[in-house]
């Protein structure tokens, strides 16, 4: 609103610099373009990079581009702050964004995301847990207890969060993530709260339980690469970790194990920034990427996350299915992160978490 017109135009040009002239025209008259005019258009997708985005490139981006003659421009590292900047200034850099739950919850609270167009996106085969007003789940992933089997040197491994809290019974350096979400839940599970009765969280009880283990945690990890580095080097024998990363390390021969019991099932979501002129094509892409066949190929061949399309397991071998978070046997042992609980609570609980950390 306060931005000067000249700035807007230049930033707009920079953001679409790689796109063709046709795409520029298409983007500026976006609201009037129908998906039948998809040919020659550009779809800008933002995901999280690395082997994850690679799996999406092979399973979704390339097949979609080939089938509809659309050019896909990729970006990575999306978050709701960058979407807010785009929506506030009406300069869209992304049409489809892969987002974590906390960003989706915040985005829905602040009206920054387009509602999913159910006339385009077929949700009939999609797991109920993966359907929200402004987002559809794209993968299930799990944050759970993982350990380095070799570093235990034959000692019995911790099998749940109560064991993780039992520092004497299951010795070894430990790590957790430096954030409130997940950890409060894990503490309550360790304290005996049944997994279906976690929310709303008994925050005081969770922090009290965390007090018990605070000084036994050698590392509070901050990013995804760190957890695997810690476990691999046995700097931490036990750590909370993301199942996909653990799986990649296992395939490389690192002796890591994941404990599904007490894991926190979470999702990544497909979203469209509010007011994106290219939203019709974006919805069409989301529908395409949600199909059983596409998800089945992604999970079977490229990455060990869980499909949100219930029929995708038809395209996944039984051996592979056992490694995935939404495999029914694994699913039973986990609880789902409650995004609507965390949405409004994230700010106060993050402050309380950080206060607890430094004291």
């Amino acid at each position, binding site marked *: 609103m306060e931005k000067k017109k000249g700035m807007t135009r230049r930033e707009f040009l920079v953001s679409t610099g790689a796109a063709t002239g046709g795409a520029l025209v298409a983007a500026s008259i976006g609201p009037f373009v129908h998906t039948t005019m998809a040919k020659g258009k550009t779809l800008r997708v933002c995901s999280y990079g690395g082997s994850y985005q690679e799996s999406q490139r092979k399973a979704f981006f390339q097949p979609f581009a080939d089938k509809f003659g659309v050019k896909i421009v990729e970006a990575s590292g999306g978050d709701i702050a960058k979407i807010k900047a785009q929506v506030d200034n009406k300069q869209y850099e992304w049409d489809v964004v892969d987002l974590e739950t906390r*960003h989706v919850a*915040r985005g829905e609270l602040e009206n920054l995301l387009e509602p999913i167009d159910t006339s385009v996106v077929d949700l009939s085969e999609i797991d109920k847990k993966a359907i929200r007003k402004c987002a559809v789940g794209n993968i299930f992933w799990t944050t759970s207890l993982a350990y380095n089997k070799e570093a235990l040197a034959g000692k019995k491994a911790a099998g749940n969060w109560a064991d993780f809290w039992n520092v004497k019974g299951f010795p070894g350096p430990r790590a957790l993530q430096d954030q409130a979400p997940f950890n409060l839940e894990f503490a309550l599970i360790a304290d005996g709260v049944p997994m279906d009765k976690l929310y709303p969280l008994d925050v005081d009880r969770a922090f009290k339980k965390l007090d018990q283990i605070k000084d036994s945690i050698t590392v509070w990890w901050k990013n995804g690469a760190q957890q695997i580095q810690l476990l691999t080097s046995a700097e931490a024998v036990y750590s909370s970790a993301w199942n996909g990363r653990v799986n990649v390390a296992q395939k490389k021969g690192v002796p890591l194990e994941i404990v599904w019991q007490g894991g926190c099932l979470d999702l990544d979501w497909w979203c469209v920034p509010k007011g994106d002129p290219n939203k019709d094509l974006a919805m069409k892409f989301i529908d395409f990427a949600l199909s059983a066949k596409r998800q089945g190929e992604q999970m079977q061949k490229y990455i060990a996350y869980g499909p949100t399309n219930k029929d995708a397991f038809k395209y996944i071998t039984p051996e592979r299915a056992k490694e995935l978070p939404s495999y029914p046997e694994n699913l039973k042992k986990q609880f789902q992160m409650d995004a609507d609980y965390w949405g409004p609570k994230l700010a106060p609980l993050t402050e309380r978490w950080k206060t607890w950390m430094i004291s």
Partner: protein
Amino acid sequence: MKSRSFSSNRARLWQKAGFRHFLLVSPALVALILLFAYPISRILVKSLFDPHFTLKHYAYFFSSPLYIRVMWITIELSVLTTFTALVIGYILAYVLRRARPGVRNIFLLAIVLSFMISLLVRNYSWILVLQRNGVINSILEHFGIINHPLKLLHNKLGVIVGMTHIFVPYIAFPIYSVMMGMDLNLEKAAQNLGASRWQTFWRVTFPLSLPGIGAGALLVFIMALGFFITPALLGGRKEQMLSNLIQIQVVDLLNWPFASAMSTILLVVTLVIFFIYNRFLGAERLWGGVRT
């Protein structure tokens, strides 16, 4: 006639000294205003209007125990790392000044090379050196000096080591350039007049290198205030930096007005330190010190 030549003279003069210089400086000036002054003023405005004028974000910062504590932790870690970088950087510059040109060039090349290596790579290298079964602990255990690994990482020590490593060149170079401009005969003269080596250092060399110390330390301290990747990777639970909390407010919580207030407070701390420096050492020494 006279007045005309005077005015054309003046115009020519103005053209020579002022306008041309202004032209030369203007690209940098425009870039600074567009990329620096404008965004910073926007941050200030954002912190004060939500949507009407309010000081509530500043009030919240100063009433919350979390933010005050983290600000002190940030300042403390910045002071500590500036000090260790200063000691190491000074010794390095001192030795380099007196080294043979061949040796000196190898050292200078090594320092410049370390500039070119990514911050993350350098942080992860320190993890390999300092971790529980890392290089240092393995060597000490191998020779039976220790039985249990020392805790060198994920605490204050780890942060100070990692940040010092990054900051040493920023301090060593200004001191080195000041020392290169220093006449070594002054030291000889002092010793000739009966000063011990220690006296020579404290009363001749050290005072002459002060501009380099001031410039390097100021630069590093201000950089340290905004650091957060290294404390996040090498620190423990208590090594939380203000910039880390700002990032959480921006990215996860979308509380941009409060994040702007926090950034402004950090900026004010920086300006206060710059002001103190300017008051006692003079800002022109910053540039003069580097040049001579």
